[in-house]
């Protein structure tokens, strides 16, 4: 309050309490789940699971049993095994697409924020134009023309992520480029490349990594939505999205077929969001945390 001489800044107190609370049990549970899902997906071929493609027409939509821990789907395939192999697909797209975004977008943002001028205007302008398109429609259009495949899907989702990463990198660079350590390096006669790689990049990398995790969450959702409609990963490959799409048919008789992959997807997306959001709050240079 302006007129209060002894104003006790409540915001400062709340913020510092929140910062320590953020790395609490919720954060670590989320990290644990992320690692767990990742590990299970990688180790899938080694795990004692029945094949996800073996159909058992006599045991269709079977409930939980000793043989099938999560039951079977509409074609008699083991649900747990499908869930695990579905994770592989969802995580593959989910992790590789943002990699495209962070490398290209991050580089563009770093350069734009550092060199400024017409280069920056060009980069920002083209990103804005790309952003003027609803991303889902763009993804649909491109996969329709280039064909449905995991590779194409990953590429287009990656490209769609470039503007966002560019913005984050540019914002961080703009803030950091004015700080003393950069000016000092310039005064010492360091080359542009040196400043970019050794001074700016390590500091810009932190918020970018936080954003990367958020990007993974978004990509899993978008890929899931496309696959749900049958327009994402090409059948017979299934990701979680495709499983949910198939499960939709049996919603009345066997709702678990849709909800099991749905819960898996929700927990995974939530975990990435939580960890990414926490890291972002901790590493945002604008908050002076560094």
């Amino acid at each position: 309050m302006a007129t209060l001489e002894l104003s006790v800044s409540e915001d400062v107190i709340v913020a510092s309490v929140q910062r320590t609370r953020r790395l609490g049990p919720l954060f670590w549970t989320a990290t644990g789940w992320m690692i767990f899902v990742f590990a299970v997906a990688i180790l899938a071929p080694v795990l004692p699971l029945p094949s996800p493609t073996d159909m058992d027409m006599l045991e269709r939509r079977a409930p939980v049993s000793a043989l099938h821990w999560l039951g079977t789907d509409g074609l008699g395939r083991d649900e747990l095994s499908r869930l695990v192999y579905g994770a592989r697909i969802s995580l593959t797209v989910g992790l590789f697409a943002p990699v495209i975004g962070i490398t290209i977008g991050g580089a563009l943002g770093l350069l734009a924020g550092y060199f400024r001028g017409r280069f920056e205007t060009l980069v920002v302008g083209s990103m804005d134009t790309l952003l003027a398109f609803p991303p889902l429609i763009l993804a649909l259009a491109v996969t329709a023309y280039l064909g449905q495949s995991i590779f194409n899907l990953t590429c287009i989702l990656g490209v769609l992520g470039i503007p966002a990463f560019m913005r984050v990198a540019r914002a961080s660079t703009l803030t950091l480029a004015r700080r003393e350590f950069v000016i000092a390096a310039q005064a010492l006669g360091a080359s542009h490349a040196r400043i970019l790689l050794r001074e700016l990049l390590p500091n810009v990398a932190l918020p970018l990594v936080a954003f990367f995790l958020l990007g993974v969450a978004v990509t899993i959702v978008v890929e899931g939505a496309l696959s749900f409609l049958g327009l994402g990963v090409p059948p017979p490959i299934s990701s979680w999205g495709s499983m949910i799409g198939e499960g939709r048919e049996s919603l009345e008789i066997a709702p678990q077929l849709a909800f099991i992959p749905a819960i898996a997807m929700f927990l995974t997306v939530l975990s990435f969001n939580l960890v990414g959001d926490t890291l972002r709050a901790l590493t945002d240079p604008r908050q002076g945390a560094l």
Partner: protein
Amino acid sequence: MTGAPLLSVEDVAVDLPTPRGNLRAVDGVDLTVGAGRTLGIVGESGCGKTMLSRAILQLLPRKAKLSGRVRFDGQDLVRLAPEALRKLRARSLAVVFQDPMTSLNPVLTIGTQLIETLQEHLELDQAAAKRRSIELLAAVGIPAPEARLMQYPHQLSGGMRQRVAIAIALSCEPKLLIADEPTTALDVTIQAQILDLLAREQRRRHMAMIIITHDLGVVAGRTDEVAVMYAGRVVERAPTHALFKRMHMPYTEALLAAIPKIDAAPHTRLPAISGRPPDPTRPLKGCSFSPRCRYVARRCHAEKPLLAKAESSDHEFACFNPIHVEAGVSA
């Protein structure tokens, strides 16, 4: 003064929990204000005077703890039900804040902010409220009042804004007006105008008024009584002319000396009070002013002085080593 005072503050204390410990902003204050009388509360930044005013108005921040009694017009405001307290506001108890740029809502017109108060408490219809608003704006010296109703605070100058705030405060004919540093945020040239406006309205309406300020010069000639605060306590209290004629507290003397005098020789150094106010989360065992006092003695560090009466019953001070100087400054 006949009868009970309009406002009676009894042993009021305000505690604020902070991460560094408990902050005692107001440390046992007793004050009275009679109907139609003016009280000036003077002190440095951080002495607790604003917290005291918030305590009287029952507008303390959520985390603050208030103890003591605030008796207004026969009722204890601390224990009053929220709805009854709300009805009391504006009609009996009004306030003018320090900075009119932040105390007026920037996205509502001047007219709205005046009219809503009138409609809430006086139950006037729209047209009557509008007329009364124009009257009020004219009374506080704002030219072209009708046009002002449609304007926003940022379209007026600082002095005009404060006049509007005063108009709002006076709109429901309150019995007591609290002006918290009413001129600190304004240009020096406007300050006297605003203070004169307040004094004039106070006399006309026979309204009680409390002026809170850090500047002793503001209260001279404009108040009936002055209370000097330091580190959350009242350290000297007296009728205004008596205070200026004969001060007892070294702190009061230092405050007076810090006012620039027009007849002083050019480039005279302004005797600022050395040191800083104490940290309210770490109260001293002895007198709070002792680290900065010119006349400090051994006893001052060991014990806290209490308010004691001087030669007349309405002049009190809290000091073990008071000064006995006739200040020779006419109020």
